């Protein structure tokens, strides 16, 4: 502000307009901030806050992605776990039946009825092995379109999915460049039993639980009955049980890892949200009080301006 200067109507009017415009534009700015809730809506508002906000967005989006993957994987693995529990139940039942059958006092009819149940349990097991989740056969490795276990001949169970020695893994990303495998190959858990006609003469291929059940069924139907063969199956069943329990523990371990990752990601997300908000959002209370101060300033400037503009020598002549 200068001391004595010659004040002309032009300069006086211009100065009034400038002051009012200034006040109005500050008021506008505050209004925009309050109605949008953000103080940085474009990079020129605050360049370094913009960088923080955009980086936070990227991290938050990635976390959303990973959490979604974790959720899908957890659901699938819960299904796997449930199925494995059913398998354990089946093996327990087979063990009971086998113990009963190994007892030398059974008649042929009784053995036949045990065999019928064993065959039914085998079919149940095949159903479990061909479980679908989200339209995919979960025990088929990376061949998820067709049921992994087929029945070329009654009593057989051939595995047509990706073998455990191949690239069966279906992986999902749960953190930057960190993936987990979410599936088990069928032959690892259930084994198989079928006649391979590509060799001459045809050979029988079998391992694991299906092999145990198929050979048990054969032994139950043998004439004369070989009780030691039947009781020998109990050891095989124990091996098969331990295979399933190991698989179950593996699944459990992966689910735990997924849970822990999920907690960590959720924590990170909260921190990032807070950081982003610090950079982007307004402090509602202080902005509103600025707004009312600015409204008062505008009113005052309007009143003073109108008084200034009216007075001149003409009023007194």
């Amino acid at each position, binding site marked *: 502000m200068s001391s004595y200067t010659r004040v002309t109507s032009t300069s006086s009017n211009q100065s009034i307009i400038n002051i009012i415009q200034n006040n109005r534009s500050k008021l506008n700015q505050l209004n925009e901030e309050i109605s949008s809730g953000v103080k940085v809506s474009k990079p020129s508002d605050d360049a370094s806050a913009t960088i923080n906000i955009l980086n936070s967005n990227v991290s938050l989006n990635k976390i959303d992605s990973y959490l979604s993957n974790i959720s899908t994987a957890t659901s699938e693995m819960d299904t796997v776990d449930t199925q494995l529990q059913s398998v354990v139940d089946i093996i327990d039942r087979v063990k009971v039946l086998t113990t009963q059958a190994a007892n030398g006092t059974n008649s042929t009819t009784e053995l036949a009825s045990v065999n019928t149940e064993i065959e039914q349990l085998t079919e149940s097991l095949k159903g479990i092995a061909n479980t679908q989740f989200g339209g995919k056969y979960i025990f088929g490795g990376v061949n998820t379109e067709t049921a992994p276990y087929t029945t070329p001949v009654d009593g057989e169970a051939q595995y047509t999915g990706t073998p455990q020695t191949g690239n069966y893994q*279906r992986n999902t990303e749960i953190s930057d460049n960190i993936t987990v495998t979410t599936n088990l190959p069928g032959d690892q858990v259930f084994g198989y039993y079928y006649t391979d006609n590509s060799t001459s003469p045809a050979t029988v291929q079998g391992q694991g639980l299906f092999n145990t059940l198929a050979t048990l069924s054969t032994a139950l139907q043998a004439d004369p009955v070989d009780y030691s063969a039947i009781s020998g199956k109990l050891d095989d069943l124990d091996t098969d049980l331990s295979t399933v329990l190991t698989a179950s523990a593996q699944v459990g371990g992966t689910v735990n890892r997924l849970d822990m990752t999920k907690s960590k990601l959720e924590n990170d997300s909260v921190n990032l949200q807070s950081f982003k908000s610090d950079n982007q959002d307004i402090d509602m209370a202080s902005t509103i009080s600025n707004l009312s101060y600015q409204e008062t300033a505008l009113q005052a400037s309007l009143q003073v301006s109108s008084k200034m503009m009216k007075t001149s020598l003409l009023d007194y002549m």
Partner: protein
Amino acid sequence: MTSSLSGIYNAQRSLLLNQAALDVVNNNVANMNTEGYSKQTVEISQITTNVSANASVYDAAQAGGGAQIDAITRSRDTYLDSYYRQENSTLSYDSKMSDLSTLVEDSTNELSDSGIMDSLNSFYTAAQNLSNAPTDSVARSEYVQSMVALSDKFNSTADQLTQLRTSLVGDPTDPSTLATSQISLTTEELNSKLSQLADLNKSIVLSTTQGTTPNGLLDTRDQILDDLSSYIPITVTQGANNIANVSMNGVSLVNGYNVEGSFSVITNPDPTEVDNNPAVVQILDKDGNVKVPDASKYITSGSMAAILDVGGNDSSTLNIKGIMTQLDQLASSFASTVNGIQLYNDASTTPATGSFCIDNSTTPATLKQATEALFYDDTNTTTNITAANIHVNSAIVSNPFEIATARGDMTAGVPDDNTATGDGSNVLLMAQVRSQKLLALGNTTAESFITAMQGEMGVKTESISNNLDSQQAVVDQISSRKTSATGVNLDEELVDLVKYQRAYEAASKIFSVSNEILQTIIAMAK
């Protein structure tokens, strides 16, 4: 000895003088709010012509011959005028830069909900989902949609920026756009003002040599000079007889009655430079020959300089070309990385490794080698992808199963295990491009690259805005001092009005008294 009639003559002169002074007051009040009007003041001095230096002491002691108006001067401070023009030039530059940078920022703002980063996020999310369900046709469609949306976003951003640039400096591939560009229109306005100036110089000189001061014309000329300063930086030199000569950083534009430098815009004739600076401003002499083939180094401020800077390629200021180049780098690098994963073929291992898509013509579906790229340029190849031409291969759009979701061993272009349709490892790699540092972007991820672009733009735009604010304050200050010197103060004029009115009344009273005296003298002779 004075004559008897001298009283009447003096009173008469007084009446005329005060009448004229009142006219000046009238004019001032009428023009109180006229822009560019300088207050006019009457210069009154004593009439001493009837007393010569050789007159006797007795004669010299006689009453004077009254008063006369020497001149009607306008209040003007030429120092303030030239200071104002200099600062106004800078203000115009800042103001134009601010307008243009707001437009650029609006086209590329990533803090809005619909920026490129948003589309990239949808792409990565869709890729993740597809990797978990590679045989699901919905997941495939969504992935294709995300690619289409991303391409569209690139295209529309590039388009907006190109249009903005064309509106400023024309598009070299379409010569008709130059005539309607801002740079052309500005040069037309400039030229019209320069010739107005030359004409005014002529009228002013004619008037001045006849002995009158053409205050109105001088005011008009000062207005034009102020207007000129908002386009380009000018220097004004006063010549004899109120002539004003104008030059721009040493290049003479108006000299006396002649326009010695007129502006013209052409498409840049140098094919290696035309992408960087599509339009070149030239200065022609009064015969129409080119006297300055490239005037850009003389146009250092003013709105014309802002147009040339934003439309050009100088990395020290905000320029559209720089941003478009960065967007092109991003589009090209991203597309080629993703295309590379889609068409992965590594024959260095035995067996070879390849990327596979799903062949739905078999039942059940099987894998086959992927042969369709995902992103194409305008000639449907992958070699020259830019932000403006990137689009999704139509083969992918019509059959999303062509997207290579699986990867594995192959022999002679046939997958070793063609049943592995549930393998999503290849598209997982596409999702993981998110964390991949791309060499062509300076070893940073795509999202970090865009973030850095936004930060850079924010810094430049913020500084333009700050410059504008501080420069506006400077110009407001000078402007206020200028109007203080040249403007009309109503109180002053009203006081003058009363002053001259009273003097007129007094003079007319003296006239009637002189008249009575004369009548008395005449009556004496009867």
